[in-house]
């Protein structure tokens, strides 16, 4: 199945509903649309956050995300996948990133979105800086997130068989 895939890294906000419609418009084979939106929270471990700044490696980030999108499209029967990731300074309540997956059936759309989310939230080529009480610190990679991402490294999902 040819999967319509789009990856964008941008500083501007995105419109997740509009991105979903770009995939589904005018077709009748799409039965399930899953969207995930990651939002900048106002606190981390109980401490208030003033802002989050995301840095990326232009060129490399797109390529890396595209290769994971291609992997999702190979594992699950997807009609379309869109990933948009923002960079720059984001304040609490602002959207950080989004994933849309569209498939004929819900299991494929769900599992592919979960797979991409685990990757994007843990190993995507971004570095995060948190502003708290005037101090700015770089976020370190979390072991917990890595464990979630590792679920995908062994075997194939049921839906792909």
């Amino acid at each position, binding site marked *: 199945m040819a999967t319509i895939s789009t990856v964008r890294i941008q500083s501007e906000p995105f419109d997740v509903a509009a991105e979903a419609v770009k995939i589904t418009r005018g077709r009748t084979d799409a039965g399930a649309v899953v969207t995930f939106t*990651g939002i900048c929270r106002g606190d981390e471990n109980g401490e208030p956050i003033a802002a989050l700044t*995301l840095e990326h490696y232009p060129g*490399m980030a797109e390529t890396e995300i595209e290769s994971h999108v291609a992997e999702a499209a190979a594992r699950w029967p997807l009609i379309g996948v869109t990933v948009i990731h923002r960079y720059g300074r984001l304040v609490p309540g602002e959207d950080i990133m989004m994933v849309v997956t569209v498939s004929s059936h819900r299991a494929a759309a769900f599992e592919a979105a979960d797979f991409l989310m685990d990757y994007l939230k843990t190993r995507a080529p*971004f570095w995060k800086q948190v502003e708290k009480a005037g101090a700015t610190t*770089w976020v*370190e990679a979390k072991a917990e997130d890595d464990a979630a991402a590792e679920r995908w490294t062994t075997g194939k999902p049921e839906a792909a068989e």
Partner: protein
Amino acid sequence: MSRTLKVRYFAWVRERIGKTDEDVDVPDSVVTVADLVTFLTARGEEYAYAFENPKVIRAAIDRKHVKPQTALGQATEIAFFPPMTGG
């Protein structure tokens, strides 16, 4: 003999070195990524600070992840950065 390599820095590696990128004349004795880290570390305090714990430094040659023992080969661009944290 030497050649010029574009070196890019991200996140706190960039902050510690105080540059986003630079062209570095790399002598032929520098063969691997690890050799380049050692070479850069000798260039000044800011480099020594950035590379003080080489274990947490990640590198990419021409935008692909590489290991410390990877040879620079025909690389035109190399980047150093901390582990990626996702969005």
